[in-house]
């Protein structure tokens, strides 16, 4: 039962949307859209599962005094504070989650604007520094392939800024051609490959060949 019931549920959850896509019958689509409603609820619980996982992982880290454990305290404190204000806001304790009707900030919004937003912005902004350093070291015309990549990158970088057009109008034109033709062809190849991989993986899960998601031990 521990194995058969989840496998049956997975089979049904996987097959219903596929059948609904190809069978334009009202009763089939009704079942599929009902399943979509359930999925929205399940996704909410998956988020809760993530929160539980974060708490477990970081509590263990603090208990064992693993490397970087003080950061785990900061993370849990952030989760508790934002979570509390978010939940309270959802029950209209502080006038809502985002801004109040008069435009003033709720505690959740204040934390978002003054802590979360600048922290996230800073993390993302750091990428520019790392990319500049990495591109200086990695972008070398060592062979034909690397040279083609280097030339394409330089044209696109020039073509995406006004200076490129000031030098010659061909920079933005060539940039658009690179993006719309060679880049698009490569992206399609990647997408088709990823799509076929995802489809085959989905089929393996639906028919019960791939069972690692069940979390069963060896031989079960």
């Amino acid at each position, binding site marked *: 039962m521990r194995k058969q019931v989840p496998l049956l549920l997975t089979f049904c959850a996987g097959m219903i949307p596929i059948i609904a896509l190809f069978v334009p019958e009202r009763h089939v689509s009704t079942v599929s859209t009902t399943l979509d409603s359930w999925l929205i609820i399940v996704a909410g619980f998956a988020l809760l599962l993530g929160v539980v996982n974060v708490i477990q992982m970081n509590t263990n880290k603090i208990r064992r005094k693993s490397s970087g454990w003080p950061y785990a305290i900061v993370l849990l404190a952030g989760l508790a504070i934002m979570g509390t204000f978010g939940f309270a806001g959802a029950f209209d304790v502080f006038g809502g989650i*985002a801004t109040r009707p008069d435009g003033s900030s709720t505690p959740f919004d204040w934390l978002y604007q003054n802590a979360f937003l600048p922290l996230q912005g800073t993390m993302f902004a750091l990428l520019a520094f790392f990319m*500049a350093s990495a591109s*200086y070291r990695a972008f070398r015309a060592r062979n034909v392939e690397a040279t083609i990549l280097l030339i394409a990158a330089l044209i696109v970088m020039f073509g995406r800024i*006004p200076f490129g057009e000031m030098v010659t109008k061909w920079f933005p034109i060539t940039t658009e051609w690179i993006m719309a033709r060679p880049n*698009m062809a490569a992206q399609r190849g990647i997408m088709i490959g990823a799509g076929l991989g995802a489809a085959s993986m989905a089929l393996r899960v639906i028919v019960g060949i791939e069972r690692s998601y069940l979390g069963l031990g060896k031989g079960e």
Partner: protein
Amino acid sequence: MNLERIMQVDRRIIYLFVAAGTILPIIFVIGLPVSITPPVQMAFDRIENQLNPGDVVLVSFDYGPSSAPENAPMADAILRHCFSKGIKVIVIAFYPLGGLSEAVNELNTVVAEFPDLEYGVDYVNLGYKDGAQAAMRKMNENIHEVFPTDLRGTPTGEIPMMKNVKTYADVKLCVTLATGIIGEWWANLVNAQFGLPVIVGPTAVSAPKYYAYLEAKQMVGLLGGLKGASEYERLVVNKYPHLAEVYATPGLYTATKGMDVQSIVHLIMIAFILFGNVVYFTGKRKPRKAA
């Protein structure tokens, strides 16, 4: 000077150049010209030429604060365009890490510029919903079931502009400002299965993959990164000159101002890459001294 030492330039020097290239154009605004690319022109034309006042556009905030400097100006420009043309806007958010807060921020900013707009009649904020893919599919059946109330807690069915908007068939266009994969779902799920025209405003780093959807006509426009946002700003200002005053507001962050920074940093990176290659080839050609 030893070429090896030049090749191994201290990364802090590179960081210093990037920092200077970022900070100086913010202080001393250059105002570089912006040229329009076809994917952005397509997006603009779709709204300007194929939508009428009173039509409904769905604007999905599928990004968080990490990519807000790129996505927020797109959102502002799209909202300004829609409101200037009298198009009604439904705002939703599918991105869990701040999508809703970004939606509230940008909507509040832009709505303040249009005092005649009325909430529930000209625009509405339906808030955040988890499980984006399932929600997107379900919205084709009934938007009211996916978003039973708006952000203020008003039942969706009681909101005047939502009374006649039940499914995707009642919406003329979807614009998603996206980081990550949610933008792709609008193109490969909502457009492919339900036929709703989609414009995507992704970050510059994700823009290349959207060209495949654009060429396949699964999208009707693309605003790639900050450059795309600055182009859209230019198009909107050209068509609606009264918005030039808004964009000239001191202290207001716009993509056009951001492009100054991006341009200088691109130049710095190009210079470093070229310098690195010149040093690399000089080192390769230099005959080695006999031991």
